[in-house]
C-alpha cells in the first residue's frame, strides 16, 4: 500500500494521476507551529477501471448472434462488464438507440442479433467506482458466419496467419522430443459460434495439398485423424500417382465417389436443425456430398493437412442459393 502526502494551504485539494481500478483512502491532517493534528476520518475512493480491449481474433459471429471476447484491461479484478451494441446503417452511421447488456461476469458475451445487419460493439469494465471509458469498437456483420482459426488448438507444425484465416504446414522437421509429444493429426479447429441454425464457410485449397476439411466435436480425439472416428466428419483429398482421390469420411467410412473437376474452393454448409453437413465446389456451384448426421452437441470447423501445404478459410459470406434446400 502506497502512502502519498501532499501539502496544501487551501481547504480543498485536487488529487490526480490516480491508478485505475484501485481503492484509495484519503485523510487530512492540519498542521500549525506546534504540530500535526490527528488524522481526519478516512474517505474511501474507488477509481473506475481502465477500458477493456476487444480481442478481434477471439470474436466470431453468425446470422443471429455474435460472441465477443475481450481482455480485461485491468490487472486487478473488476466487478462486471457492460457490453453496448449499436446498429449501423449501410453508410456506417448509427441508427437506433444503443442497447446495453450489463453485469456480464466474465470477459466474453454471446449477444443475440438480427440477420444481415451491421453493428458496432463496445465494452466497459465496471467496479463500485463506476464504468470505465468505452473500449475501442468492434464492427460486427451478421451476414454469414465468421470465425477464426484457434491458435491454441493448432498442431505445433502449423503456423496460423495473423488474420487467423490461413494455416500453413511447413516442411521443417520438428525436434524429435516435440514430435513424440504431439498429437498425430496436424489440425486446427475454428472458433464457430455455439448457435443452432445454418452456417456456411469456404475453404481455398490447391491441387497439391492433401487436406481434410470438415467439423468435429470439441472433445474429439486429437490423436485420431479427422474423419476416422464418429466424432468428426470431413472431406479428404488424396494425391495418388495416377489421380486425385476424394473421400467423405466419418467413423472411418467413406462413400465411393469420383469427382472429375478438382475443387479449388470448397463450400461447407452446416445445418444443425436439418442434421446435414454438405460440401460444394463453389466455382462450379456443384454439390459434392452431404452427410446426414445427428449432432449431439455443437461442433467446430476442423482443418487438417496430411502433407506440407496450406489452406485459407473464407467466411463471413452469405450461403449461396444453391446450398440452401
Amino acid at each position, binding site marked *: 500500500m502506497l502512502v502519498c502526502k501532499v501539502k496544501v494551504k487551501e481547504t480543498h485539494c485536487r488529487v490526480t494521476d490516480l491508478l485505475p481500478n484501485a481503492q484509495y483512502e484519503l485523510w487530512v491532517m492540519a498542521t500549525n507551529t506546534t504540530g500535526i493534528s490527528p488524522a481526519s476520518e478516512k474517505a474511501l475512493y474507488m477509481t473506475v477501471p481502465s477500458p477493456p480491449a476487444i480481442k478481434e481474433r477471439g470474436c466470431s459471429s453468425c446470422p443471429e448472434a455474435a460472441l465477443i471476447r475481450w481482455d480485461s484491461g485491468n490487472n486487478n479484478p473488476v466487478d462486471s462488464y457492460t457490453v453496448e451494441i449499436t446498429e449501423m446503417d449501410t453508410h456506417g452511421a448509427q441508427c437506433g438507440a444503443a442497447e446495453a447488456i450489463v453485469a456480464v461476469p466474465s470477459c466474453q458475451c454471446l449477444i443475440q442479433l438480427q440477420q444481415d445487419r451491421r453493428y458496432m460493439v463496445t465494452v466497459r469494465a465496471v467496479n463500485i467506482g463506476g464504468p470505465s471509458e468505452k473500449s475501442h469498437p468492434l464492427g460486427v456483420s451478421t451476414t454469414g458466419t465468421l470465425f477464426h482459426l484457434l491458435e491454441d488448438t493448432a498442431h505445433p507444425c502449423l503456423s496460423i496467419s495473423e488474420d487467423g484465416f490461413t494455416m500453413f504446414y511447413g516442411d521443417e522437421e520438428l525436434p524429435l522430443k516435440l514430435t513424440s509429444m504431439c498429437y498425430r493429426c496436424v489440425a486446427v479447429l475454428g472458433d464457430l459460434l455455439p448457435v443452432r441454425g445454418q452456417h456456411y464457410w469456404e475453404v481455398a485449397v490447391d491441387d497439391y495439398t492433401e487436406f481434410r476439411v470438415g467439423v468435429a466435436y470439441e472433445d474429439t480425439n486429437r490423436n485420431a485423424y479427422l474423419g476416422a472416428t464418429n466424432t468428426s466428419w470431413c472431406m479428404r483429398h488424396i494425391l495418388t500417382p495416377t*489421380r486425385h482421390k476424394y473421400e467423405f469420411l466419418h467413423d472411418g467410412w467413406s*462413400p*465411393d*465417389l*469420383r*469427382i*472429375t*473437376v478438382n475443387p479449388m474452393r470448397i463450400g461447407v454448409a452446416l445445418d444443425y436443425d436439418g442434421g446435414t453437413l454438405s460440401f460444394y*465446389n463453389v466455382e*462450379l*456451384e*456443384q*454439390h*459434392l*456430398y452431404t452427410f446426414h448426421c445427428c449432432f449431439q452437441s455443437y461442433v467446430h470447423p476442423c482443418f487438417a493437412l496430411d502433407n506440407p501445404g496450406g489452406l485459407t478459410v473464407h467466411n463471413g459470406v452469405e450461403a449461396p442459393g*444453391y446450398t440452401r434446400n
Partner: protein
Amino acid sequence: MLCLSCPFAKLSMALTQVSSNKCAGGYQKVYEHESVELQCKMKFAVYLPPKAETDKCPVFYWLSGLTCTEQNFITKAGAQQAAADNGIIIVAPDTSPRGCGIEGEDESWDFGTGAGFYVDATEEPWKNNYRMYSYVTEELPKLINSNFAADPDRMSISGHSMGGHGALVCTLRNPGRYKTVSAFAPICNPIGCPWGQKAFAGYLGADKSTWEAYDATVLAASYDGPKLDILIDQGGDDQFLSSSQLLPDHLIAACSAKKIPVVFRRQPGYDHSYFFIYSFMSDHIKHHAKYLNA
C-alpha cells in the same frame, strides 16, 4: 378419353389418353399417339404435379433401359412424390417403336423391340422406324409443349442403362438444351461394349466412325458447350458393370480430361434393377430441381 379438366390441354386428335391415376396429389397419365418419326403408334407416360393445374412447369425426361416400356418407370421408380414436391412434369417415353412388323425385331432382348438405343438408324430394315434420337429430342418435346402445362425453356434429362446412354448423348449433342442431366448405371461407351457394338452395327452399319456420334465418352472428349453438372449413380453389385457393358471409367477419364463436372457415386450392394433406381431417385430429382427451378 381426353383430359378435359386440364386448362392447358388442347383437344388434339393426335393424343389419346390411355390411363390416368391420381398420384402424390397430381396425375400419372399415359397417352398414345401416331409418331411421325417412328411411323407407328407410340405410348408415353406423363406425370403432372399439382402445380401443373395453375402454372407452367419444367419437364424432366426419363429414358428407360433395355426391354422396358413406358410402364416400368411409372410403377417402379417412385419418382412421383419428389416430382410433386418440386413442381416438375416427368415424361417417360417407350424404348423403341412397336409393332412395325420388321423381320428380326423381336429376336433379341438387346436389339430391335425394346432396344432402340436412342439413335436414328441408317441401315435397312431399321431406318424408317428406328429413329428414337429424333423422337426424343424433336417430336416428343414439341408434343409435350403444345399439349401440357410445360415450360418449353426448362427441360432436363435422365435415364437408366441404355436410357442413361441416351440421356448423356442427347445432352452432349445439344449443348444448352437441357438444364441438367443425370444417369443410373448408364452405358457410357457403347462403342466399347458388346451391347453397343451389336446395336450400332445393326442400326448404323459397319462404318464405326458413324457410331461416334452416339457415344457419350467420345462426345465428352470433344464437348464444347455450357458448363454441365452430371450426377451418375452406379450399383456396385451390378452384373453388367462386372461384365464390362457399362464402362463408367472411360467416361470419367474423358470428363476429367475435358474438365466436365461429374459426381459419380458407386453404391455398394446395389444391382442394375429398379430397386436401385428407386433408392436414389429422390437425390436425382433434387439435383434436377436445383437447375429446373433456378
